[in-house]
């Protein structure tokens, strides 16, 4: 089972991302479970969203304590809490940043496998707004292979209608531009 935790802020679309990815995995024939950190979320406040993907029916109904992946939509969140604190040793951090892998490691001390992409820039260019949730899915897929890139098309179309095309482009762009650095011992 693959357990992924999204870190974002209320309004950035972490929950939407999780839902889209869950639907894509299910449409690939897998089982998935996507859910928000339940509660009265307010715009701007740090939020979590959770995703489980497995080949079998998922019976767990608790939070993800030790994720395989943490995805960080907003790098300013790292200053508040360390999203990598409970990440499995073989896990991966997927980060939205304009910095290089080396600079990121230097700044935050991450030892895990690390994937970075400047999703803000891609989102601004492609979508015209700095909303990075769908863009970051490209980075996540690049780093984990959780689903196929093509599997995202249908869920995005259903969710965004005419706006889906741009989101798909943003996702693909991020998939191509994401840089992955292996874990440091």
């Amino acid at each position, binding site marked *: 089972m693959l357990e992924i935790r999204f870190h974002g802020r209320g309004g950035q679309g972490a929950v939407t991302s999780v*839902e889209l990815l869950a639907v894509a995995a299910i449409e690939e024939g897998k089982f998935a479970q996507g859910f928000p950190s339940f509660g009265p979320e307010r715009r701007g406040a740090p939020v979590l969203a959770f995703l489980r993907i497995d080949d079998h029916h998922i019976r767990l109904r608790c939070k993800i304590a030790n994720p395989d992946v943490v995805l960080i939509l907003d790098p300013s969140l790292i200053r508040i809490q360390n999203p990598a604190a409970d990440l499995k040793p073989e896990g991966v951090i997927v980060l939205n940043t304009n910095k290089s892998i080396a600079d990121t490691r230097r700044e935050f001390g991450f030892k895990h496998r690390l994937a970075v992409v400047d999703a803000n820039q891609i989102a601004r260019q492609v979508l015209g707004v700095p909303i990075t949730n769908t863009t970051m899915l490209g980075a996540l897929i690049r780093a984990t292979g959780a689903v196929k890139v093509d599997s995202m098309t249908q869920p995005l179309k259903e969710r965004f209608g005419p706006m889906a095309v741009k989101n798909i482009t943003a996702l693909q762009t991020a998939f191509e531009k994401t840089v992955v650095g292996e874990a440091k011992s």
Partner: protein
Amino acid sequence: MGHRAGMEVSIAVSHAVQLARAEAIAAYPITPQTHIVEHLSSMVANGDLEAEFVNVESEHSALSCCIGMSAAGARTYTATSSQGLALMHEILFIASALRLPIVMTVANRALSGPLSIWNDHSDIMAAKDIGWIQIFVENGQEAFDHTVMAFKIAENSKVLMPTIINMDGFILTHVVEAMNMVDQDLVDKFLPPYLPRHTLDPKYPVTMGAFAMPEIFAEVKMNHQVALMNSYERIIKVWEEWGKLTGRQYHPVERYKANDAKILLLTMGCLGEVAEIAVDELQAAGEPVGLIKLRLWRPFPFAELRDALRNAELVIVCDRAVSPGGAAPPVLAEVRSALYPLSQRPETLGYIIGLGGRDVSPVSFKEIVALARDESAQGPKQEYHLYGVRG
């Protein structure tokens, strides 16, 4: 026959209501029921569901409005949670006394105070004696299936009883997961249009809701009690029919690796599947632990439950509500009471878990089993425990 799809369970429930061709809905928003009614109102607004949706000004009015709708002959649905169910409380009894087949989803949530929007069963346990059929579901598939089936059960001319589907708030309602949907054709064959036995019709005027003097009140209650207990057979029949159509067969008491298990965990709702994982791990380690999941809460399945529990040595009942100052939390109280007449009966211990959204993992269940075994060996220290409380 249907298709597999990933969606939020609340949306699946609203699709089930749509497939059942509900005609009249009255609801008031309350977390975590909101996604269900949001989707239903958008279906009505888009013409995807030919129904009337009334945005009432309170849950009290929601159920009252549903009573009017159902009494006038419409297939009626509503959903609520927690404080909303509590605000309906008075009217819950009247809906069943009038024998109106309203279907209601309760997104189970803690009752204030302190205010908590998160999941446990204290809302429905405060309403266990309302005279409705009450069913608990474990996952999205079950929530979907049982919503469709509830209409058929409730509207059966021999049943005519309002029916509640209990689904855990957030940890079920707000989760996107894989489910097998069914086609409209199948539902239409399964669920015929609602033919009310009596309605508010000027051509055949009736009086509904007359008051009862002491000479007759108990007879009216007896009539209701017998009807509710008799609904059991119809419920089973409907579940069997659904099982044949979909391959998904449900039972009032579900057993998981319970044969020959000396120790049985007993749960209700979607923590049952979490407990399954604990049971798998415990059995793998050679421990004789199985799981019983109580699906049908009203009418209470005495015979099946006794059958399922009678050969165990220890039954660990995991309640999700407190009965402050009471003899036992609600499920433990009923299970003990059901077992009492047996000459040989297992020991019953109670652990209250997952209150107000507290996370429950397989580890929790394993700990509870260990605690209960100790307690059983040394003799119970207290009537029941609130598991995991600090201090």
